[in-house]
C-alpha cells in the first residue's frame, strides 16, 4: 500500500487518481470506438495521418487505455486497502472483472464497435464448448496429448536427474559443462522442431522428443543445485556412521536434494508440456494443439476461441495439480 502511495504520489488522494484514471480510460475507449469522428477533426487540421488507418496509433491508444485502467484499478485497490476488506472481496473482484469483461465485449460486438467476424460473441463461445467437446473427439485428443506428455516426462525425469547426479559426481565434468547446460536452457530449443521433423518424421515421436529436449536442462541444473546444497552437517553425519558411497547417496544426499529436484521437475515438465502443445499446433498433428489449428483453418470462429479456452483450462488444471503434488511431496521447508 505504502509502496503504491509513494509511486503515485502521496499528495493526490487515491480517490482523485481513481476518477482521473477512469475518465481518461473512458475518453480513450470513446476514441477507439468513434475513430471516424476523430478523423473528421483531424481532417480539419494539416495532419495527413488518419487515425483509422494507422494501426500503431490505434495500438498506442489501446495501450494508453490499458494503462489508465491499471491505474484506476490500483487506486481502487488503495481505497479498498485502507478499509482492509476481506479476501473474499478481492476474489469477487477478480471473478467479477472477468465476467464484466465478457459482458462489455458482448455489448461492444452487439453495438458493432467490434467486428463480429473477428471476435465472436462470448455467449457463442460458451455455446460452442459442448459442440467442440462432443464433435471434435476431445477426450481421445486429450488422452493423446497426455500420453505424449507422460512419455516425455518419464524420459526427461530419468535422464535429467541422472544427468544432474553425474555432473555432481564428477566435479571436472561439472566445471566443464555446467555453463553449457545453462546456455542450452536459455536457447530457444523449440525452434529446432523442423529439424526434428526431418529426423523423426511428422509423428508423435517428434512431439515427444521436442518435449524431452525442452524440459531437460532445468531438471539437470536443479538436481545439481539440490545435491550441491546438501548441508555439510548431514554429509558429516553420514561419514560418522561410516556409510558406503551408495548408502551416502540414497540415505543422505538424495533425500536432502529432493525438494530442489521437485522444483526442477515442475519447471521441466511445464516446459515439456508447453512445447508439446505448441508443436502439436505448429505441425498440425496429434492432440489438443491440432484441435485449435483445425478449427482455425475451418474458420470456425467460436470453435477456435472455445478450443483455445479449453486448452488453457486444461493446462491451468495441470499446473495447479503439479503445484499441489509438489507441495504434498515436499517436506516442509
Amino acid at each position, binding site marked *: *500500500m505504502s509502496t503504491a502511495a509513494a509511486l503515485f504520489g502521496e499528495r493526490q488522494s487515491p480517490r482523485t487518481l481513481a476518477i482521473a484514471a477512469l475518465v481518461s480510460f473512458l475518453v480513450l475507449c470513446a476514441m477507439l470506438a468513434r475513430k471516424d469522428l476523430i478523423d473528421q477533426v483531424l481532417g480539419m487540421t494539416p495532419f495527413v495521418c488518419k487515425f483509422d488507418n494507422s494501426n500503431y496509433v490505434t495500438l498506442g491508444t489501446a495501450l494508453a487505455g490499458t494503462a489508465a485502467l491499471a491505474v484506476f484499478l490500483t487506486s481502487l485497490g*488503495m481505497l479498498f486497502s485502507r478499509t482492509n*476488506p476481506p479476501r473474499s472481496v478481492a*476474489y469477487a473482484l*477478480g471473478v467479477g472483472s472477468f465476467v464484466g469483461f465478457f459482458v462489455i465485449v458482448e455489448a461492444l460486438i452487439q453495438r458493432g464497435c467490434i467486428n463480429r467476424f473477428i471476435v465472436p460473441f462470448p455467449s457463442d463461445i460458451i455455446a460452442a464448448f459442448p459442440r467442440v467437446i462432443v464433435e471434435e473427439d476431445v477426450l481421445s485428443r486429450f488422452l493423446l496429448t497426455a500420453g505424449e506428455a507422460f512419455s516425455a516426462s518419464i524420459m526427461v525425469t530419468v535422464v535429467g536427474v541422472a544427468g544432474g547426479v553425474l555432473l555432481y559426481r564428477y566435479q571436472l565434468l561439472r566445471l566443464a559443462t555446467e555453463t553449457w547446460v*545453462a546456455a542450452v536452457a536459455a*536457447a530457444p530449443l523449440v*525452434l529446432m522442431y523442423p529439424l526434428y521433423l*526431418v529426423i523423426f518424421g511428422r509423428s508423435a515421436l517428434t512431439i515427444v522428443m521436442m518435449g524431452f529436449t525442452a524440459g531437460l536442462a532445468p531438471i539437470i541444473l536443479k538436481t545439481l543445485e539440490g545435491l550441491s546444497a546438501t548441508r555439510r552437517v548431514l554429509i558429516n553425519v553420514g561419514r560418522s556412521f561410516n556409510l558406503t558411497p551408495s548408502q551416502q547417496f540414497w540415505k543422505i544426499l538424495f533425500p536432502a536434494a529432493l525438494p530442489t529436484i521437485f522444483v526442477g521437475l515442475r519447471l521441466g515438465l511445464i516446459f515439456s508440456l508447453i512445447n508439446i502443445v*505448441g508443436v502439436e499446433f505448429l505441425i498440425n498433428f496429434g492432440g489438443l494443439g491440432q484441435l485449435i489449428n483445425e478449427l482455425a483453418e475451418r474458420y470456425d470462429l467460436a470453435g477456435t476461441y472455445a478450443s483455445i479456452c479449453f486448452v488453457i483450462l486444461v493446462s491451468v488444471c495441470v499446473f495447479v495439480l503439479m503445484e499441489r503434488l509438489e507441495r504434498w511431496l515436499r517436506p516442509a521447508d
Partner: protein
Amino acid sequence: MAETGRLSLPAARAMRLRLRPVTLLRIAIIVTVLVAWEALAASGLLYRDVVPSLVAIGKQLYATLADPTFYFHLYTTFYEIGIAMIIGCLSGMVVGIALGGSKFLSRAYEAYLYYLGPCPKIIFFPIMIMWFGVGPGSKIAMGAISCFFPVALNVAGGMREIDKVLIRVGKSFRANTWQMVTKIYLPAMRHPVINGVRLGLGVALIGTLLAETKLSNRGIGFLVIQAYSIFNMPLMYSLLIILFVIAIGANALISRLGGLDSIRRS
C-alpha cells in the same frame, strides 16, 4: 523459469584461465562430438543429408552470412522482437507495479496471471492473425503476449520484496516521491526487473519466431521452415546455429549488464 538458464560468463572465463584440466576436457568433448558427427555423416547410416558434413554446414554458414537477403530477414525478425519487447515490457511493468503495490489487487488478479503465464502462448496465434493480419503485426502481438507475463510477475514479486528498511530509510531522509522512486524503489527492484526482461526476451524470441514458422513470408523463422520444405539441411543447421548464438548471447548480455551474476542464485 526464473531459476534456470542464468549464464556466468566471467566465472567461466576465470575458470578457463585457472583450471587447465577443465579446458582440456572441454576441448575433448567438443572434438569428440565433432568427430562423431563427421563419422556419422560419412557413414551414411542415417537418411541422406539429415546429418550433413561439417564442411557443408560451414560453407553454408558462410554463404548465409554473406547473403544480403539474410540480413533483410534478420532485420525483420529483430524489428518484430524489438517492438514486441517494448510493448510487452511496458505493459508488464505497469501491471506488475499495480499488482506489487496493492495487496488487494494482487489477491484479485495475480493468480490469473500466475497460471496463465506458463500456458503455451503460440495457441493464441490464430486469433492474433485475425486481429492483426498475416504481416508483422501478428508476430509482434505474439512476442508481446509472451513477454508480458514474465515481466509482470517478476516486477510484482520484486516490488513486494523490497526491504522495508530501505523504504524507512528513504522516509527518514524525508525523500519526496520522485526521490523515493529514483533512489529507493527502482534501484531496489533492479534485479527482478532485469531478470523479468531477460526471461521476457527469451520467450518473446520464441513466440515471434514460432509465429514466423507457422505463417509468414519473411523473417528468420520463415527461412528455417523454408529450409525444411526444400530440404536444405545445411541451411537449416546454419540458421539454427546463428539463432542460438544470438539468443544465448543476448541472454548473457542482459544478465551481465544487470549484474545478475553478482546476486546469489535463488
